[in-house]
């Protein structure tokens, strides 16, 4: 998988966190799993990539960050309970990162759409991808905590 494609999602995540919460997202790790990988998650929003590129990307975070994202989107209104509003915020941050990544990919000639997000939440949950294909796992840290972006593309391998 072309790491230039992964870079668009890295840049998109950094840009969106900056715009949503004036939060500086710092990349702390980039792992590549050519044979696929299972991902542990507390909360994850999963979005499909369609068009010139096909695959999925996943944003993995925890409840505390979900509440902070919700509060930031609501212009500072405190959100203290993980409810439908916080869940909607997690989906929306996925949409925003996907939208920004799509815009950046289009500038490079890749025309992509992002599907409506779905969300999973649980303790000791693992996300697996089938059919097995290469994955990028990008780790970030910020003042709100840690965030991961997982990118799986079926082509451009």
């Amino acid at each position, binding site marked *: 998988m072309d790491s230039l494609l992964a870079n668009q999602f890295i840049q998109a995540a950094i840009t969106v966190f900056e715009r949503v919460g004036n939060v500086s997202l710092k990349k702390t790790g980039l792992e590549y799993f050519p044979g696929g990988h299972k991902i542990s998650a507390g909360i994850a929003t999963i979005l499909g990539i369609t068009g010139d590129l096909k695959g999925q990307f996943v944003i993995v975070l925890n409840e505390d960050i979900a509440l902070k994202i919700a509060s930031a989107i609501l212009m500072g209104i405190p959100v203290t309970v993980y409810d*439908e509003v916080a869940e909607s915020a997690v989906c929306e941050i996925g949409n925003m990162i996907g939208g*920004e990544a799509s815009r950046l990919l289009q500038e490079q000639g890749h025309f992509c759409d992002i599907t409506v997000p779905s969300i999973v939440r649980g303790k000791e949950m693992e996300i697996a991808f089938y059919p097995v294909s290469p994955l990028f796992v990008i780790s970030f840290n910020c003042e709100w905590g840690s965030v991961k972006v997982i990118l799986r593309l079926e082509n451009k391998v």
Partner: protein
Amino acid sequence: MSKKILVVDDASIMRLMLKHLFENNDFKVIEAANGREAVELYAAHKPDLVTMDITMPDMDGITAVKEILKIDASAKIIMCSAMGQIDKVKAAVMAGAKSFLVKPLQPDRVLSTVKQFLG
């Protein structure tokens, strides 16, 4: 008399954000969670302006813009979408949207755009 804005977005947090923003600036707000609901509410309430997401279940925002303009050719519709690719912007403008704001939404920018069309 307060101007009425129809906020259309499938994400409850975005409807809540825009509702707070507009109500705190003396606008009345009605909400729809998809394009089909938006068309029905537009016909029933004739709002002064619409903010419209693009990717939504049931009926997407671009189709909803076209349907609303069939009801009222002078409808003022501002797209508010995370999908800011040039082809999406072109499609929205071709459908009849007056402006296009890319999420994450900046409250000041949203208000200035709305006021530009509502005077």
